[in-house]
């Protein structure tokens, strides 16, 4: 029963998080910080054991007649788990300083840990029903983070989010139920377990339902018509919650999409259908809208929120190409984007914490005060813009290669054009922050007295993520072969 290990990253943070509500002592900050650090590190170690371990662990538990609880650490799951653990850990450390002025901190960290457990559950789940359960709980568990401040804005945002979530849930429920009828297995199988014999005659409805299912997951990934909750959420929630939701939870939607296309229906049946075309168009629209709106807003957090929409659009575009190269590119982009984005959030969060700046213009000359973090910001921006030699470039390269190879005609041309426009706009909205941060011009006269160098809890995660994303960018071949093997096995 070595598969039991798989339960550690799920159950441990869950238990630890719930325990936080009961232990009064944890209201003191130093003790609580240590407690949370310990939990996060132990979970990360468990995740590392699962990821680096030689064999693929599995855990099956027939809970009832029609529900199979199944965890599986296959290639994709390993990648997701590693990414989620690293990101969640770093974000947790960042939260220590930032949350120290908020109320009810123990409640925040409690829910933060609980949420972590469920996110790991999504990453590790080995079958659609399991994933659906974890997916639902994750979506609900992040609501307390979202409305942590209990202002009217936060509550409005939460209601808004819940409405979207409910609609998405409806899509997922019906789509999933319908599709599961044509699956041979409840588990995720390499290449999908679609029973073509059963499907005969129902293709039209099947496609519609697949689309519905993908759309349901797309709501979480803020794909075009459903991207609005994201900006509203950004304005209302505290920064660590925003970075967790924007950086990591949006990726849960993408992970689910990848699972559906790779492990349930298989890529081949979707390739060349209207589902793919519409899907690509939606992804392109999200890239476009995200990039343009981010360029045009002057609010810092709104800019990052729209930027997320655009960047996740790039990832979804890679997924929608339905071929191993594009899928590899999408996953690489997902890794690059998660890490680089957290760095951006850490930097802006640290600045906001000390000064209360919310507008881009206010950041003029900030690089003189906190040069190292702003340098990380600049490096992370390069990742998002896809400048070589960064991981962002690698992802962009594979995603566009995959898309150009499989999609034909005008959609491909439009795709690569929009991709480029997205990157140019990304340069347009990220670089001025860096540029004016380091080169404020003549009018600037050592303002920013309030800016202090952030504490180590904030800086170390930023440095760590920057180093990791650049190391991966310089030598991505092991990563790419790993992902490519995991994905190609599924396209057979």
């Amino acid at each position: 029963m070595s598969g039991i290990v798989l339960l550690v990253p799920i159950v441990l943070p869950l238990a630890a998080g719930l325990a936080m509500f009961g232990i009064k002592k944890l209201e003191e900050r130093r003790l609580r910080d240590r407690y949370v650090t310990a939990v996060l590190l132990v979970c990360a170690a468990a995740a590392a054991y699962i990821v680096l371990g030689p064999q693929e662990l599995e855990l099956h538990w027939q809970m009832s007649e029609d529900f199979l609880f199944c965890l599986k650490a296959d290639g994709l799951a390993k990648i997701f788990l590693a990414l989620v653990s690293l990101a969640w850990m770093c974000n947790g450390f960042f939260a220590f300083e930032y949350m120290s002025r908020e109320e009810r901190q123990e409640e925040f960290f409690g829910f933060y840990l609980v949420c972590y457990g469920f996110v790991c559950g999504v990453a590790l789940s080995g079958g659609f029903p399991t994933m659906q359960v974890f997916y639902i709980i994750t979506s609900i568990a992040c609501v307390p983070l979202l409305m942590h401040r209990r202002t009217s804005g936060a509550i409005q945002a939460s209601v808004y989010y819940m409405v979207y979530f409910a609609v998405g849930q409806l899509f997922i429920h019906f789509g999933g139920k319908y599709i599961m009828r044509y699956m041979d297995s409840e588990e995720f199988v390499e290449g999908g377990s679609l029973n073509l014999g059963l499907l005969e005659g129902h293709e039209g409805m099947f496609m519609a339902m697949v689309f519905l299912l993908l759309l349901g997951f797309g709501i979480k990934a803020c794909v075009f018509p459903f991207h609005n909750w994201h900006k509203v959420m950004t304005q209302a929630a505290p920064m660590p919650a925003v970075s967790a939701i924007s950086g990591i939870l949006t990726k849960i939607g993408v992970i689910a999409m990848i699972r559906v296309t790779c492990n349930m229906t298989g890529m081949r049946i979707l390739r060349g259908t209207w589902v793919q075309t519409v899907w690509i168009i939606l992804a392109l629209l999200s890239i476009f809208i995200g990039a343009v709106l981010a360029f045009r807003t002057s609010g810092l957090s709104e800019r990052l929120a729209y930027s997320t929409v655009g960047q996740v659009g790039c990832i979804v575009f890679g997924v929608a190409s339905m071929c191993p190269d594009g899928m590899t590119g999408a996953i690489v982009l997902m890794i690059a984007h998660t890490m680089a984005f957290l760095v951006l959030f850490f930097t802006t969060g640290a600045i906001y914490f000390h000064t209360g700046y919310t507008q881009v213009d206010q950041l003029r000359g900030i690089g003189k005060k906190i040069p190292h973090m702003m340098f990380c910001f600049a490096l992370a921006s390069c990742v998002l813009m896809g400048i070589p030699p960064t991981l962002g470039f690698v992802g962009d390269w594979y995603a566009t290669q995959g898309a150009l190879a499989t999609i034909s005609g005008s959609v491909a041309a439009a795709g690569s054009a929009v991709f480029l426009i997205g990157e140019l706009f990304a340069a347009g909205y990220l670089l001025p922050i860096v540029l004016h941060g380091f080169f404020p011009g003549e009018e600037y006269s050592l303002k920013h007295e309030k800016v202090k160098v952030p504490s180590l809890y904030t800086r170390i995660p930023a440095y760590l993520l920057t180093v990791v994303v650049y190391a991966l960018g310089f030598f991505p071949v092991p990563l790419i072969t790993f992902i490519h093997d995991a994905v190609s096995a599924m396209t057979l």
Partner: protein
Amino acid sequence: MIGDYRLLILVLWPFVGACIGYLIGRKDSTYRDYFADFVVIAEFIYVLWLFPALREGGREDFLLEGFCGLNLHLRLDGFREIYGSVAAYIWMMTTLVSREYFAHYENRNRYYLFVLPTLGATMGLFLSADLFTVYLFCQIISFTSFVGIAHDERDYAVKAASTYLAAEIIGGALIFSGLNRLYLMFGTLEIDVLRDAVLALEDRSAVYAAGAFLFFGFGAKAGMFPLHFWMNRAHAGSPAPISTLLSAIITKTGVFGVILVCANIFFGDQAWGIFLLILGTFTMLLGAMRAVFGVHMKRILAFSSLSQIGFILMGLGSALYLGTENQIAVHGAVLHMLNHSLLKLLLYLCAAVIYMRLHTLHLDDIRGYGRGKPLLHAAFVIGALGIGCIPLFNGYVSKTLLHEGIVECVHLAAETGGPQLLFTVVEVLFLLGGGMTIAYMLKMYICVFVQKNPAAQEKFDGYNHHYMGAATTVALLGATAVIPVFGIFPHVFLEKLALLGQAILNPLLPPEMAHPVHYFAWMNLRGAVISVCVGCILYFFVVKKLLMRRLEDGSWEYLDRWPVKLDLEYLIYRPLIERWVPDMCGALCSVLNTPVLYKVIQKMDLTPEWREKKKENDRKRAEERERRLARKRMKDSNKYR
């Protein structure tokens, strides 16, 4: 890793040196400056040592597979060898000057931290044998040199730097999409493999589409016509050592990319050759015209660079048109690139020497500064003669070859029924461009070294004998000496170099001159004479009459007669990027982005009243408790009284 790792050291050493220098600089800036000198000098010596060493034994290339997902491939052959050495040489000279130039600047540590990696990246770019490697180093150069341009932190410098970065990023995006298409077609970006693969194709239209993307992408880096808008401001706004690098080397990285595209994708395509020729002519004339109108020394030099890049493109165009037997045109293009690098190094160093004392380069302010400074005088004159293509100076050699190339085009067109008239017009414009070059160099020369300054001549004369430090003198002398040596013995130096470097444009050329060129025969001297005559006429009848004004005290004032509005950057590009495109896209997005649902939710009253009440209750309860405690304390104290 396959091949000789020593090539990689060549690229990595400046990066490492920059980091070490930064750490030293945090402790002591003097040692940091000496260390930076050491880094570039070591690099130059290493280059000179490495090339023969590699030739004798070992492989001449280095391949790092899987860097950034693709291949990092460095190679050493003729052209790469020449330009690698030139890059190291120019960096050495500018770094020697930097110490004195930046003596009173702030943030010097940052300057060295970014300018040294630019050397490494440039070296890598000129050595690259793979288009991805070219792209990679191109992007690194853009980001590192950008910091150098904005070094002043003045508004104009920051603005110039942002324009530069915008041009580079747009160029980078074009290159990215071109490479993407090429890789999709051939599965490789190796330059040699690509060339054969393209030649083997029947229908080349798809390749040409990719090639056009690459061409304009690299063109943006080279400052080619529609994407040249960053050139003058970036050159004028940056500190002189950086503008030297920009003009002498960094624009050449773009030209190198253009050469690779032309030689490997468009090889032997006559139509593309004509297009390139026209584009080159236009770039050349535009640059020369704006240089003639210029009143700021660095701007004039910047537009002069633009114009010379036009000449190089013309050489490439005629080389493409001539097909396989294009040795003269190829030599012209390669040598003009080399000569221009050397000449611009010299001229910008002169500008740096002037700026170090005066902190301005406006022609009105530097009038007469050069009087009584023989070394500066000699250096500038030699540079001016070189770029004006006077016989016995290096520029003459390459321009003669370029001219010959165009004349060959005329003959070929006459034989094959090509557009003969077009080539004849181009030839005339070529000579006119040469004349304009002489006119603007004459303008600067007379301004600085002949005219007297009505206001500050005494102050200027006071600088005589101590207007530059020892390191600067060495650099200036070194940069000057090369030019007449190359010019007087063209067959000894330049021709050999051209034979060494020709393979980059056409590997089929014979390893010796097919037809010997008599540089000092009347037929070739005639071009120079015509150019000089045109230049003098232009100077005395256009520049003196229209662009200068005689004041009452007999001195001349320089007038900026170029219409302010006629500036592509502010006329088209900035509004396009800052307003038109975002506004258009924004209008589209705002339609798509109306949050109906959220508005409904906002309408609903969701103020958390229960929470307010709870707070109120908590407060009341706390007050109550406080009161009770107080009463108890009172009672206790009464008890013990």
